């Protein structure tokens, strides 16, 4: 202690602390909000990954404790576990966690667009407990969407604790959502695409980096704890003859129809059950559980819970096409019951299950009629998964990447794309509103939809621009020459091409006034304003013209390759009349 009080040691300490302070200060300057947010995304991924690991353990533990490792038909547990769990879940949801009903995708999207990215932390806790109980006891729901909401809720809570700016707070929930989903499905690319397609609802380059970072870090965490084994043992998948695409087109059409039945069933039954007296809501999850348990008891325990191990067996030809078809139909019924009863849980896994079984069934039937088809059962099951994903969840891009990421096989990309496209088109034409949008609207919310945005035609500058005028002046022109040309024209305002770059305008009145003032031998460039006019390109959205048309009488539209070449003109009237004509159309 005495040494520390000597002048030398004090000076050394001062020097050391000043170095540390300088380093710290540099570090602080390094972390602007953008960089901080990126690093924060990694931590969100880590925390979401850890939460999802715990969530999966909770589901597995509940399943093992209450249903046993492999549920067997005719066991009383199949009836008791989901129905009693349903009653408990109903009490928890109604009294403690009213925001956790449903899958969690809509709620996360609503948080992004309506609540400034805010999701109460209580939601994560409630979702964790209730979804684990529901899925673990055999309700026909999956763990992916709840994981998405848990991740989003964790991220939102963190953002609020750190009092991030409103803009970042809005973005942080999707970052957490991507982390949660990626961890649950062990597929970071699909998770990122799904969050962009279904949660954010529009392509946004600003958030992409954070979403990818969080998704990847969460997957690393989950693989570290639970291993990197894929969800399924991927069978040999083959696609040899292009003519066989017809078989996959049939699968796409059947899958599209099944998706419509599934979506319409939920869309029809959910409002009916919601409209029932409040006391019935205490019984709905329990009754749904009892019915699902009864299906399992009768000999179809495969439809209970997420059912990944049964998808795996279907992939390896364990079931006949009749059983596969029955399982697909019963899973639609079971998932509809679970979901509309308000039991918290996801649609992701049931959708894959139905698609897998349907794919296997369609493949089996096709093989009966066309024994020379080379596609294995596993190929049809995999393609079927993507088909229902595209048709029901209406996330076509995610559906393709999901199958590729899960199978690790690019050989089947063509059948996947073809079948998914047909499923999407069939579903889109018979059920115009996608399931998540339908559910949101049933809850009285209107949220942006990438699907609708995709089909919306955007007005561009070229749609409203007027053709280039006959008289275009140059800044090197003399006033008298310009006035002569102006006299021969009916234009009131003339665009002027400036000497090196840029554009300006001059009115007929000003030209005449300059002539009267005896400035005919001056050039236009020496007299008119040197403040260049703003200009536009033909491909820009028309809304970009709105910034200028109130301040300048006309806005030049120039060629991107040569800004001195005039393609047309935009005026306030031309913009508004274009919008009006679209409105009336």
């Amino acid at each position: 202690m005495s040494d520390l009080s000597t002048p030398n040691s004090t000076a050394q300490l001062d020097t050391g602390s000043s170095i540390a302070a300088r380093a710290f200060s540099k570090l602080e300057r390094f972390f602007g909000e953008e960089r901080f947010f990126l690093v924060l995304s990694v931590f969100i991924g880590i925390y979401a990954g850890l939460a999802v690991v715990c969530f999966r353990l909770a589901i597995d533990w509940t399943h093992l404790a209450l249903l046993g490792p492999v549920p067997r038909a005719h066991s009383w547990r199949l009836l008791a576990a989901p129905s009693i769990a349903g009653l408990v879940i109903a009490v928890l949801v109604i009294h403690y966690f009213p925001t956790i009903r449903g899958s969690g995708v809509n709620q996360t999207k609503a948080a992004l667009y309506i609540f400034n990215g805010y999701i109460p932390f209580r939601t994560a806790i409630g979702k964790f407990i209730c979804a684990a109980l529901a899925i673990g006891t055999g309700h026909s729901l999956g763990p992916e969407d709840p994981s998405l909401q848990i991740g989003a809720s964790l991220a939102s809570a963190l953002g609020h604790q750190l009092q991030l700016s409103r803009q970042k707070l809005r973005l942080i929930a999707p970052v957490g959502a991507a982390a949660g989903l990626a961890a649950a499905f062990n597929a970071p690319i699909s998770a990122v695409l799904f969050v962009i397609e279904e949660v954010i609802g529009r392509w946004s380059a600003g958030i992409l980096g954070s979403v990818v970072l969080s998704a990847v870090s969460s997957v690393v965490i989950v693989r570290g704890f639970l291993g990197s084994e894929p969800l399924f043992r991927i069978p040999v998948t083959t696609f040899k003859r292009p003519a066989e695409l017809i078989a996959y087109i049939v699968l796409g059409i059947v899958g599209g129809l099944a998706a419509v039945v599934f979506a319409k069933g939920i869309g029809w039954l959910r409002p009916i059950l919601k409209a029932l007296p409040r006391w019935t809501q205490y019984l709905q999850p329990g009754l749904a559980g009892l019915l699902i348990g009864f299906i399992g008891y009768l000999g179809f325990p495969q439809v209970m819970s997420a059912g990944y191990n049964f998808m795996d067996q279907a992939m390896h030809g364990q079931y006949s096409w009749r059983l596969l078809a029955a399982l697909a139909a019963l899973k639609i019924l079971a998932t509809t019951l679970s979901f509309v009863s308000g039991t918290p849980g996801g649609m992701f896994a049931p959708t894959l299950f139905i698609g897998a079984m349907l794919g296997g069934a369609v493949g089996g039937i096709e093989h009966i009629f066309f024994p020379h088809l080379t596609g294995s059962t596993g190929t049809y099951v995999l393609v079927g998964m993507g088909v229902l994903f595209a048709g029901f969840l209406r996330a076509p891009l995610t559906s393709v990447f999901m199958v590729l990421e899960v199978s690790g096989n690019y050989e089947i990309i063509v059948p996947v794309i073809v079948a998914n496209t047909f499923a999407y088109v069939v579903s889109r034409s018979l059920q115009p509103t996608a399931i998540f949008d339908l559910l949101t609207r049933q809850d009285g919310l209107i949220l942006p939809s990438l699907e609708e945005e995709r089909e919306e035609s955007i007005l561009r500058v070229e749609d409203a621009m007027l053709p280039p005028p006959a008289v275009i002046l140059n800044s090197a022109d003399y006033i008298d020459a310009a006035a002569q040309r102006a006299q021969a024209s009916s234009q009131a305002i003339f665009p002027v091409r400036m000497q090196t770059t840029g554009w300006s305008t001059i009115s007929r009145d000003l030209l005449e006034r300059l002539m009267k003032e005896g400035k005919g031998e001056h050039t236009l460039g020496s007299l008119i304003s040197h403040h260049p006019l703003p200009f536009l390109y033909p491909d820009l959205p028309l809304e970009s013209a709105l910034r200028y048309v109130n301040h300048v009488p006309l806005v030049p539209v120039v060629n991107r390759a040569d800004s001195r070449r005039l393609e047309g003109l935009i005026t306030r009237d031309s913009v508004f009349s274009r919008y009006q004509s679209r409105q009336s159309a």
Partner: protein
Amino acid sequence: MGPSFRVFSGNIALRHMSILSNQLIPRSAPAVLLYLALGAVAAFAAVDHLVSRFHANVQSRGRRLYAQGVADLNGGNLEAAVEDFRAALTCDPANPQYQLSLGRALRDTGHLDEAESYLLALWQRTPEDGTINLALGRVAARRGSVDDAIRYYHNAMYGIWSSDPDGSRRKARLELIDFLLQKDSLAQAQSEILALAALLPPDPTLHFEAAQLFSRAQDYADALYQYEQVLRLDRANIAAMAAAGDTAYHLGHYRTAQRYLQEAARLNPQDSHSRQLLPQANLILDSDPFVRRISDAERNRRIVAAFRGAGQRLTACAQSKGLNLSASPDMDPVLSGLEARWSDMKKQLPRLHSSIEADLPDTIMDLVFQIEQQTASDCGSPQGMDQALLLISRDREAADQ
């Protein structure tokens, strides 16, 4: 209330804090990230502990289920074993032992696709493992896929075995041979048996097994050699003695057959097969005029006896068909032709003792063999002397070819 931070101008500054003193509060982005990192480390440790406990618990349950599956398997209840192994694997999905057992049980219950997928997943991790290759070989064998079976069985033979490598490799080869024999791939089977026999230790049981496989592959010469190997190692091996006699008899080595059959019948009076075969071998040896080290007189005696026997057989065969060959030769021109030739030849019999007619013994025996073959074809398998003559004729033909 916990600490709260606000991001602005590139810094995260403290806004409100009620529990900790200002000295301890992080005021900047690096400090916040440090806190997050520390929190992550703590959460990581907690989750790690949780996962370890969970896995230990579940693995213990998996071991119980696996033991139940093994018991079911030993009790012959394959379907229950599949369910148990599947349940065990649910508890411990990465356990290779469970995967292997499930793969085998699935194969034995006929679920070949799923069995193969489990086994292939294991194979991709350890392609040199003999046990996995053997299991895959058995799947291929059940499918009837000769190429795949050969590939996997060969992998098993040259793969790594944790215990008794020589015995395991031999077992794998024996299974492959058995499969090839079932598929009638005799040439491939013979080459595998040759490879097997070349590596056999001096164990009479193993040589006996190899000899039996050679017999099944219709390679009687090598089979006889293996039986003789057995007898060299175990002179009192009655089964090998009888089998050697039988094999030598099939090879036409009647003298050798006689020796082994005599010994087999002596050692095991209950061996009816050897006792039945021995008189036949004796008869052949006593009837064959072409055996060496007999006198001309004895050879001529055998030829005459064979000729008379053939004539009687011809007459009996014609009578059994209701034919009178002399009266109506057109009824069966072949038998009538033989009868005519036999009658002509009968006239030449006295010249058999003449040294001028050197080709006559062969000519007579050719006719005898033709009569025996034709009557065997028309009137069924002969017995006694005729059977002996028929076998001699076949051996002669084989020797000529």
